[in-house]
């Protein structure tokens, strides 16, 4: 029995299942909701299967077509990939349960196939060991995500979707030119082989610049973040959750992969990592300040995403000396953010559904009338602020530890400032949620499943605060950061 489990192609299922599910949803639209939920559940099970397998046999590598790199495409998964896959599965489950109640019949037939194909793209990206294959998955992801944003209709959503599409395409094209240079410079597009072959030549530097710029644009790092707030704020709530939690992390994951493996000979120099750290710091400060200034809840949450992404980039300057701790911190932050931000957007969706608007000042005694939703938002806020116990706390703690260890007081200051600002905008929302608004609005009942989906995701973010050791040991499978060893 155990042999069956470890022999079963869980990794391959992660890609094929959502593809098949999406196509069946297209053929039988009436069954979309059921099919979607079943598929996402099956995907989540497959992630467990992959984890089981990897605990047993280490790195997962699959040569598609039997050819193997450099001629063929390799699927590759280590602890880092596993973590991202798990995040996708968890957030995906929560969002799917939410969407089952959120979308009506008409919108539902459009949502489910697009979402399943988006999930397929995410999984295919996290499992890919080939940079051109990643380009194709980026395109699949981008088109599906844009179509999902546009589902909301109306000028804001359409404008946001258009900005998103243009930015995504520009980012992909820059990335593709980088692929062209790498292939013609080093003769392969396989990540593992490139890691061996790349040296510090002009070609590699140009490729780093192009791919870095493209991926920074896709990850919405300051100052290339302009497309994110309109897109994430005007999309339907479950779509916003998916975008902020998962899609934006996909390009970060690729940037990290390239940094760690392909461009390793180049990043010994401090210039690039200092630049990334600087951009991250500005993102934290700028994003947090802008979040504080918003009067609409979804825009506040979107700017919070911009800020939280900045934290991830603080790891780059720290990693040179602190090694794995800084990366573990970034990963833990990414994972916690995925759960917490998804919960926040879903909670905002509930509030929108309930009151018909998302003006912060108009949040009318939400704590009384939608206690589950208010709890979800509050718990998610705990993680975003970095208060214990939560995943966000662990991540920030590790990052602070790395910064203090290197006496990077500037980064410490940024993190503390960011934490304070985050507390400010979270409590701003909660403050209004406790009090009565000047004008009460007609309210609509919120389905229980929607409230519970938000709450469970938020609980997940908090729960991560207790699971640091097992999670980090999973991440260490295959030693993606070159150095093994769990954090504190």
């Amino acid at each position: 029995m155990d042999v069956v489990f470890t022999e079963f192609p869980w990794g391959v299922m992660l890609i094929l299942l959502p593809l098949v599910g999406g196509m069946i949803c297209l053929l039988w639209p009436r069954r979309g909701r059921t099919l979607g939920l079943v598929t996402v559940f099956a995907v989540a099970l497959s992630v467990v299967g992959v984890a089981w397998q990897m605990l047993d046999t280490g790195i997962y590598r699959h040569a598609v077509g039997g050819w193997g790199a450099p001629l063929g495409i390799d699927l590759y998964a280590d602890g880092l990939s596993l973590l991202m896959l798990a995040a996708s599965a968890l957030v995906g489950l929560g969002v799917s349960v939410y969407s089952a109640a959120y979308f009506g019949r008409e919108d539902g037939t459009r949502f489910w196939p697009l979402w399943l194909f988006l999930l397929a793209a995410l999984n295919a990206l996290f499992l890919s060991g080939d940079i051109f294959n990643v380009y194709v998955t980026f395109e699949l992801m981008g088109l599906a995500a844009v179509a999902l944003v546009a589902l909301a209709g109306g000028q804001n959503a359409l404008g946001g979707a258009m900005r998103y599409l243009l930015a995504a395409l520009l980012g992909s094209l820059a990335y593709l030119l980088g692929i062209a240079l790498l292939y013609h410079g080093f003769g392969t597009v396989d990540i593992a082989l490139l890691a061996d072959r790349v040296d510090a030549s002009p070609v590699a530097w140009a490729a780093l610049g192009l791919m870095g710029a493209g991926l920074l644009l896709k990850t919405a790092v300051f100052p290339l973040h302009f497309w994110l707030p309109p897109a994430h704020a005007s999309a339907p709530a479950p779509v916003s959750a998916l975008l902020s939690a998962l899609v934006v992390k996909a390009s970060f994951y690729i940037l990290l992969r390239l940094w760690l493996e392909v461009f390793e000979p180049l990043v010994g120099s401090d210039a690039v990592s200092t630049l990334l750290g600087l951009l991250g710091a500005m993102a934290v400060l700028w994003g947090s300040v802008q979040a504080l200034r918003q009067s609409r809840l979804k825009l506040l949450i979107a700017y919070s995403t911009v800020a939280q992404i900045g934290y991830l980039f603080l790891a780059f300057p720290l990693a040179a000396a602190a090694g794995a701790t800084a990366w573990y911190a970034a990963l833990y932050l990414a994972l916690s953010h995925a759960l917490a931000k998804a919960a926040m957007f879903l909670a905002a969706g509930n509030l929108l559904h309930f009151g018909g608007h998302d003006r912060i000042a108009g949040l009318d005694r939400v704590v009384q009338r939608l206690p589950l939703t208010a709890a979800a938002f509050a718990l998610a806020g705990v993680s975003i602020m970095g208060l214990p116990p939560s995943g966000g706390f662990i991540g920030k703690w590790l990052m602070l530890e790395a910064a203090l260890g290197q006496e990077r007081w500037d980064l410490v200051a940024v993190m503390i400032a960011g934490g304070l600002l985050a507390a400010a905008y979270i409590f701003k929302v909660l403050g209004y949620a406790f009090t009565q608004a000047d004008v009460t609005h007609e309210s609509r009942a919120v389905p229980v499943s929607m409230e519970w989906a938000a709450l469970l995701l938020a609980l997940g973010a908090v729960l991560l605060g207790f699971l640091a050791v097992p999670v980090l040991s999973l991440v260490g499978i295959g030693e993606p950061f070159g150095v093994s060893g769990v954090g504190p």
Partner: protein
Amino acid sequence: MSTSLLYALVGIGLFSLSLYGLIVHSHLLRKILALNIMGSGIFLVLVALAGRTGEAPPDAVPHAMVITGIVVAVSATALALTLMLKLAAETGRAELPDEGRE
């Protein structure tokens, strides 16, 4: 200078020209045109440099990548154009709306 280098440089030129065009124009159709030309420029770089094989036939892998890229480009263009039309129907103009004020 060989054929490969010549066309690769043309590809770089196209990339830069369309980068300029993408940023500078505000009409969405022009932005979409710029993105298409940019894609073509990158494809030129890919295929041109694949011809550095001397007497042998050119390297087939970049050719396959470019064919994939062309299909992806037409898919993205179709979606972008439809989005543009929908936006124009809402706002009356084929331009990105100013960021929504609160």
